[in-house]
């Protein structure tokens, strides 16, 4: 399994492959025997094309790196790098309904929302990213190019063990302006049943314009 193309799609009206899909398909390849968790992920480029996952292997020098993720089991850690596949766009797929509701924010990066998901690893990622994106969208009069760029310090099980309903809370910690883009690092807290994952850090990037 040194190199494996991921079965990813362009969902709805988007013009990029979602990070949640990339991590979700990779998690299926990593498997959960022994039980594994996602520790970190970092995306430096978006793509509308296919994605190749390289598992603890030599990076293909002719492909553009999209990012990387680190998974952990009791036996150790495994790093996976993602590369853009040269070729056609990823195939389209229908969008899915929103999974967060009762959204609240102070417009400065703090927010909360409830979620209803299927309890899988990918459905939880979708809820997190939808929620954090919504918080960032309210940070100015016009907020564009809102991207999920990283998560760190996480212990997110790959098993379908997440609460199906609960509340997400976002607390901003670090903000930086880099090349005209606002970059943020925030803490995500999940309230649900006993299976709610522990707090972790999430990074987003966006362009904020105010009148």
């Amino acid at each position, binding site marked *: 399994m040194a190199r494996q193309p991921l079965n990813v799609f362009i969902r709805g009206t988007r013009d990029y492959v979602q990070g949640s899909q990339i991590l979700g398909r990779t998690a299926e390849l990593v498997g959960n025997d022994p039980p594994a968790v996602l520790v970190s992920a*970092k995306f*430096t480029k978006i793509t509308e094309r296919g994605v190749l996952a390289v598992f603890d292997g030599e990076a293909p020098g002719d492909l553009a790196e999209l990012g990387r993720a680190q998974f952990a089991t009791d036996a150790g850690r495994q790093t996976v790098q993602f590369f853009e596949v040269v070729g056609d766009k990823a195939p389209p797929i229908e969008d899915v309904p929103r999974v967060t509701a009762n959204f609240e924010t102070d417009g400065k990066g703090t927010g909360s929302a409830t979620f209803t998901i299927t309890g899988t690893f990918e459905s939880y990622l979708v809820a997190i990213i939808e929620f954090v994106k919504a918080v960032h969208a309210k940070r100015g009069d016009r907020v564009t190019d809102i991207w999920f*760029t*990283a998560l*760190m310090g996480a212990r997110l099980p790959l098993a379908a063990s997440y609460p199906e309903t609960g509340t997400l809370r976002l607390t901003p*910690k*670090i*903000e*930086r*302006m*880099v090349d005209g883009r*606002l*970059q*943020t*690092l925030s803490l995500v807290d999940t309230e649900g049943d006993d299976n709610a994952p522990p707090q972790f*850090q999430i*990074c987003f990037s966006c362009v904020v314009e105010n009148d």
Partner: protein
Amino acid sequence: MTREEALTAITKALTTTVGDIDGTLGEDTNLVDEGMLDSLDSMTFLFELENDLGLKLEAIDETYEDFRVGSIVDIVVAATS
């Protein structure tokens, strides 16, 4: 906090962010210019540093750009005095 203690805290935050570093950090080292931190890593580094110190470094706002170690030592020493 002394400058030496501040440097130790900065080294710890850097190691947590990017893993082991070669050699020791000097005050003239620029963490960004010398490629030790990219823009994403710089946020993680600042988060880890503030977390370890248990305080917000108010001098480092969203426009802060000086990642020379000596400058960050100055800020940590001032914030903890």
